[in-house]
């Protein structure tokens, strides 16, 4: 099953339409669940569509997915790492009216090539390639992420607040 999510704010039909094109081309026959955002008019006989999801529903689908397709939002990126899922990401673009600014392009710059299971795309060709890789790797286990820091941020905030400072 592939889980598509566009986040909690605006719809992102460009992503959903691109996925549908790929689905047509690849003849992918697995189930697809798509969270398309409130205000999206997308319907499909081959995709189960929901506007929005509660936290529990989100993680229900997330944890069962063979792969995730998403806008380049931090929630989806972090959840892919937490749940050891391969993810294909397309950033929302300000010029196309898909967000209030271009911070998702910045997020892509930050995360691109940092994790071999997260694929970032900006056009149809790279999206199709990433989807093909995602599907080829269904069943191949993703190694759990090893944290790079020792909760440094939490440690520093706790120390600033005078907590957790009692070292032996």
């Amino acid at each position, binding site marked *: 099953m592939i889980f598509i999510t566009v*986040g*909690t*704010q605006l719809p992102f039909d460009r992503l959903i339409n691109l996925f549908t094109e790929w689905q047509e081309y690849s003849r992918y026959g697995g189930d697809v669940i798509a969270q398309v955002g409130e205000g999206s008019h997308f319907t499909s006989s081959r995709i189960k569509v929901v506007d929005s999801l*509660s*936290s529990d529903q989100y993680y229900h689908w997330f944890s069962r997915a063979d792969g995730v397709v998403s806008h380049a*939002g*931090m*929630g*989806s990126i*972090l*959840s892919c*790492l937490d749940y050891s899922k391969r993810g294909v990401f397309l950033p929302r673009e300000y010029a196309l009216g898909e967000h*209030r*600014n271009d*911070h*998702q392009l*910045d*997020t892509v*710059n*930050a995360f691109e090539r940092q994790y071999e299971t997260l694929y970032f795309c900006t056009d149809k060709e790279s999206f199709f390639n990433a989807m093909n890789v995602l599907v080829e790797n269904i069943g191949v286990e993703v190694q759990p992420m090893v*944290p*790079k*820091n020792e*909760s*440094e*941020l*939490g*440690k*520093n*905030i*706790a*120390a*600033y*607040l005078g*907590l*957790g400072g*009692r070292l032996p």
Partner: protein
Amino acid sequence: MKILMVASFGGHFIQLKRLHQQIRERIEGEEVMFEFATTAENVALNNDKAHNFPNVHRGSGWGVMIVVFKRAYKLLKLIKPDVVISTGALPGLIVCLMAKLLGKKVIWVDSMANYQKLSFSGHVAKYFCNICLTQWEHLAENDDRVVYWGKVL
């Protein structure tokens, strides 16, 4: 000590949950109580129900803004936190601003999504929060008001 953590539902709240986990790992027996607030209903964290806070963005009118400021005041009077920590976005900023006016200690943690520059809310937060944190080292380099202490990842 009572800490209120507030963030919009979605990616901001996922970062809040990770930050909460990181802070808890560091607490060694001190009396710390956490409360949470987010822009969706019926959200729980560690079996604690998060308070609901209205969603608001830059396009919302002044009428909505005034209502949201009042809600921020009510929330803070209800919870009475010593410290407020927000991981974004505008609703979190409003709670932080009201908390500062009420004399609380306030910490802003800008979203990891902002790699090239601080968010709009972060740019406002840095002028009044006790600490304004970015999660990217290079964004703290040329701004005395912004600090890098690590990431939620």
